[in-house]
């Protein structure tokens, strides 16, 4: 479960933080599709991981570390 409106400290997400989280969630969804060509899946996964990294560092709730 993630929280789309507050960070792990209970603060409201700022506009940029909401955008980062939304981008992460969109790439996460895309990376889990099985109908995309490898070129898309692999590169989207890389993008998703980097977005997760930014969200995680900023204390934005985006799940446990190991779920690729």
């Amino acid at each position, binding site marked *: 479960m993630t929280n789309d409106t507050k960070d792990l400290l209970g603060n409201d997400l700022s506009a940029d933080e909401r955008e980062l989280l939304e981008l992460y969630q969109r790439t996460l969804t895309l990376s889990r599709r099985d109908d995309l060509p490898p070129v898309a899946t692999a590169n989207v996964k890389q993008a998703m991981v980097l977005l997760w990294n930014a969200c995680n560092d*900023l204390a934005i709730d985006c799940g*446990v570390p*190991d779920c690729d």
Partner: protein
Amino acid sequence: MDSDRGRRSTLRGPTGNPGPLAEAAEPNGVTVTSTTTAFWNPKTETLPKDQLRALQLHRLQRLVAHAYENSPFHRRLYDAAKVGPDSIKTLDDIRRLPFMTREDWMACQAEKPIFGDLITRPQSDAIRYHLTSGTSGRQPLRVLDSRKDWSWITDMWCYGFWGFGVRPSDTVFFAFSYGSFIGFWGAHYCCEKLGCLTLASGNMTTEQRVKQIVEMGVTVVCATPTYALRMGQAAEKMGIDLKKEGKVRRVIVSGEPAGSIPAVKSMIEDMWGGKCGDTAGMTEIGTIMIFECDHQPGGPHIIEDHFIEEVLDPETDEPQAYGDSGERVVTSFGRGFIPLIRYRTKDLVRKVPHDTCDCGRTGDIFEGGILGRVDDMKLIRGTNVYPRAVEAVVREHSEVEEFQIIVSRKDNVQDEISVKVELKPDQQDVWPRLSAQLGKDLADAHEGLRFNVELANQGELPRFELKAKRLQDLRPQH
């Protein structure tokens, strides 16, 4: 996309947003393009302590739940101790969790080869495999990392590199062998992430490395402290004055306690002409957990938004107060494949408050870096001797090129300690004076213990690229 132009950041931090690009003059005449923030992550690096503790608690609760659900090793450990995810209500509850040791880890690898049942995901989900360096002997630990783990690992290095002043305009050289030992691997990827020109040197000789550092106008060099000195010595022998001909403005060291010994740092800075900053990490974590900031406060900051670093009395397991040395026990929030919770490192450290440094980070500091190993201590005729303390004395003498510590037993009764010293080629004349002074300094630093100080021939003592092993204990082992 044009609509984003001129938009102001709403990411939080002490300065609001990172600010415009600025240029700054640096040692060796290098100009660095930089944003005005000194922090990789302004939001969490400067959190007030109460908020930092709240963040740590949240992450600890989630980590313990993840470990309990997905790692049979942790479930077994916690069931035996009658604790679980619900046991963590406050940060102090971390003390209810049992310790994890290297011996436990090795035992689970032996029982269920080759990774044991510590890992939370199948091997096929990993993208990287590394081994411990073997410094502590015995069987190496094997680690796996997922994509997210590896990205997090490189990011921890980013905290350190950015914090010590590395910027996208830098050219970074890694004097590192790029083998199965994790070493500077994460740091290499960190520099690519930062946008630096990143130079690998896996198969090069020391002389080739020195040459490339000068030729390429390298501005940041990464190595063990021992090897940074060795490259500096090699440059001297090659007739290269690194201060004049090089552009190095930062030397970032890791892998040995010597990185925070003032005399060693001073030697490195004198040789290279740039600031020397210490970092420390471990394969079990996959990355660094402490780094020295640009203010060089006498020790590295703990990355407290990603780690809990306890300092415990190794005998009683009770927490040590600020300023008292004890054993590092680490909990890491970042690596999903291998949860590391209350891991006994056997590293000896001394924690001091964050405001010992005025950089603005709220992560506390390990004064003097990693002071040594709890199990590194040698008892010689009733006196405790730590290799790092010997190195701190020896490195005060700039005439010394290399040294070795030998512990032996005379007539099966009396323990002896000797320091073999190899002088720089042009310093042979100083030996009579230096040997007497070194003997006195070593004794003064060790409650009057007598050290035998011996002269070694040129090139006789071993040189090191990775972690130096300068102590030989020749006493019978029981």
